[in-house]
C-alpha cells in the first residue's frame, strides 16, 4: 500500500492553529487528569504494598483484623511471646519483638486546628522489626521526653520541605506538648504518614492501659508457630496475621475510594473525547472533497485513513508529552492527607504508561471514527461536497 507522505499529516496540523491548540490543550488536560487519578491510586496502593515485610507477623486482639487502631492487647504479651516462641530474629541480645500502640488522635501545632493522624508508640525493638524504617534526620524519640519522630510525608504535608526543617517543631497531643526530634523514611510505606513516639509516653498521654499489637520478626520460626501460640494462649485473646496480609486487607478496604477516583476521571475524559470528536469530525468533513481527490489520484482509503490518524496522533502526542512532563515534574510525591494518614502521589513508569496509552487512544479514536465517516462516501459524491 502506497501511503501519503508524513509531511502531509504534519502540514495539515497547521491548517487551523486554533484547532491545533484546542486539540493539544485538550489532550494535555485529559492526560494530566488521568495521571493525577492513577498517581493517586498508585500512591495509595503502593504505600500498602511496601509496608509489609514477609518476616513480620502481627499479634493483635481477636476481631480487630480490619483495624489495628481498634485492637487491645495486654502489655505482658510481648514478654510472653519472646519467652515462648523460639526462632525469632535476635540482634545483639535484643529480640525482634515490638510492642506497639497505634492511636488515631488529632495533632495540633500550637494554636491550630488539629489534624487526625496515627501515632505509633514504640520501643527501640521496633527499629529491628521494621528495618525498612530509617531515621534520616535527628534521632529516635526517648522515653519520658514527649518526643516525636515525624514520618517524611507528614513533615512535607505540614509544609516542611525538606522534611528536616521540622526538627524542633512543637506539637500538641491531647493538650500535652511534644517536640519533633527526628524524621523517618520507610521506602514509601505507611510509616511515612505516621508519627512515632515512645510507647510509654503515648500510653500515658492517651490514658491507655493496653497496647494495640505485638509485631515479631521470624527467623527460623514459621508463621504457623506464631499462629499456634495465639491459638493456645486463649487468655491473651490474640490472632496472628502476617504483616503483608494486614496491609493487603487495608489496601482492599480503600479499593472503593480508588474506584470512585478512577471512574470520575474516566467520566471526565470520555466527555472531553466526545467533545473533541465533534470538532475533529467537522474538520475532516470540510476536507471531504480533498479526500475524494486523493482517491481519484489513486490513493487507497486505507492510506488516507492512516494519514488522518497520523495527524490526530501527532496532535494528541504533543499534548500527551507536555502532560507527562508536567506530571512527572509537578505531581510526583505531592502529599495527600487522607483518612488518618498521608501518602504521596506516585508518578512512576506504570502511571506514565497509562498517560501515554491514554494519549494514544485519544489520537486514534479522535480520528478513526470521523475518518471512517468521511471515507465511507462514494468518491463521486465526495467530489461534489461543498457544492
Amino acid at each position, binding site marked *: 500500500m502506497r501511503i501519503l507522505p508524513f509531511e502531509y499529516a504534519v502540514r495539515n496540523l497547521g491548517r487551523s492553529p486554533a484547532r491545533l491548540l484546542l486539540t493539544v490543550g485538550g489532550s494535555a488536560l485529559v492526560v494530566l487528569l488521568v495521571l493525577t487519578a492513577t498517581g493517586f491510586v498508585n500512591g495509595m496502593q503502593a504505600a500498602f504494598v511496601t509496608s509489609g515485610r514477609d518476616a513480620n507477623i502481627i499479634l493483635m486482639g481477636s476481631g480487630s483484623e480490619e483495624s489495628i487502631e481498634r485492637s487491645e492487647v495486654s502489655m505482658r504479651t510481648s514478654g510472653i511471646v519472646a519467652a515462648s516462641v523460639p526462632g525469632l530474629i535476635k540482634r545483639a541480645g535484643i529480640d525482634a519483638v515490638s510492642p506497639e500502640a497505634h492511636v488515631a488522635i488529632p495533632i495540633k501545632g500550637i494554636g491550630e486546628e488539629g489534624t487526625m493522624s496515627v501515632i505509633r508508640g514504640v520501643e527501640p525493638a521496633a527499629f529491628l522489626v521494621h528495618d525498612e524504617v530509617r531515621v534520616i534526620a535527628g534521632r529516635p524519640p526517648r522515653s519520658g521526653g514527649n518526643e516525636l519522630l515525624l514520618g517524611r510525608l507528614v513533615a512535607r504535608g505540614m509544609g516542611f520541605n525538606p522534611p528536616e526543617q521540622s526538627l524542633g517543631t512543637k506539637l500538641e497531643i491531647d493538650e500535652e506538648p511534644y517536640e519533633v526530634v527526628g524524621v523517618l523514611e520507610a521506602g514509601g510505606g505507611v510509616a511515612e504518614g505516621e508519627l512515632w513516639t515512645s510507647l510509654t509516653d503515648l500510653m500515658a498521654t492517651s490514658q491507655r492501659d493496653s497496647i494495640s499489637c505485638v509485631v515479631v520478626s521470624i527467623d527460623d520460626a514459621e508463621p504457623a508457630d506464631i499462629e499456634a501460640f495465639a491459638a493456645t494462649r486463649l487468655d491473651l485473646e490474640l490472632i496472628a496475621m502476617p504483616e503483608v496480609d494486614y496491609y493487603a486487607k487495608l489496601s482492599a478496604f480503600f479499593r472503593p475510594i480508588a474506584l470512585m477516583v478512577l471512574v470520575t476521571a474516566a467520566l471526565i475524559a470520555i466527555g472531553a473525547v466526545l467533545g473533541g470528536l465533534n470538532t475533529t469530525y467537522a474538520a475532516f468533513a470540510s476536507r471531504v472533497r480533498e479526500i475524494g481527490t486523493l482517491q481519484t489520484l*489513486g490513493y487507497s482509503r486505507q492510506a488516507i485513513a492512516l494519514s488522518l490518524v497520523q495527524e490526530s496522533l501527532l496532535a494528541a502526542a504533543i499534548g500527551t508529552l507536555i502532560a507527562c512532563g508536567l506530571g512527572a515534574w509537578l505531581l510526583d510525591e505531592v502529599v495527600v492527607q487522607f483518612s488518618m494518614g498521608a501518602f504521596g502521589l506516585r508518578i512512576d513508569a506504570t502511571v506514565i504508561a497509562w498517560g501515554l496509552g491514554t494519549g494514544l487512544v485519544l489520537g486514534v479514536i479522535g480520528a478513526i471514527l470521523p475518518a471512517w465517516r468521511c471515507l465511507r462516501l462514494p468518491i463521486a459524491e465526495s467530489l461534489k461536497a461543498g457544492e
Partner: protein
Amino acid sequence: MSTPFIQCRDLTRTYTRGTERITPLDKLDLDIDRGRFVALMGPSGSGKTTLLNLLAGIDSPTGGELHVGDTPVHSLSRGRLAAWRADHVGYIFQLYNLVPVLNAYENVELPLLLQSISRQERHRRVSNAMEAVGITDRHKHYPRQLSGGQEQRVAIARAIVTEPDLLLCDEPTGDLDRETATSIMNLLQRLNRDEGRTIVMVTHDPATTRWADTLLHLEKGRLLEHEEATT
C-alpha cells in the same frame, strides 16, 4: 480496423434514492478511438458526469461492460481500480481540487509518489509537466497564492505527470473567465494533438466544443448524437 480505445457496451448505472430508482446511464453503447478529443454535452441529468466517473473508475456500473485499452474496468475491484487510476487516468476538475497544504510542485508530485520511481526521475517528470503547462515560475506557491487559471494549470500538470492514457475533464473552464478559459483549452488541445493524449471532456459551454474533434450529445442516459468536427 483497430479496436476502439474506449468501448462501452450496454453500459448502465442505476441509483436508489429512498424508494426511487434513478438511471442516469441506460444501456449506453459508445466507442472512442485513441487520440481523440471528445466533448460530452447534454442537459442536466443526461448522464455525462456519470459516464465520466465510470471512465475514471471512481464509480462502478450496475450493468454492461466498459473497456479502456485492454482493461475490463467494469470488473475491477476497488483496490485494483485505485491502482489502475494511478497509472492510466488523469482527472481535471472544475474546481481544481488542489491540496491546500501542498505547494504547486508537491501537488503535481503527489500522483508520482504512488509509483516506484527514483526521486530524480520524479523531479524530472514534475518539471516536464509544469513546463508543459507553463507554470514553472510558481512551483513554490501554495494554491491560495495562485489565480484560478494558474490553479487549473497546476491541476492539469498533476493530471498529466503520470503520462496517463486517458485525460478526463469535468468542466475544466467552468470557473474561469473567457480569456483564461481560452488559454486552458489551447493547452488541452496541444496535449491532445502534440502528445496524442485521449481526452474526454464534459462541458455545458458550447464555445469550448470547438477545440474538440468529436462531439457527443447525451440525453436521459443514452447517446443522442455523435458528431465529428470538421476541421
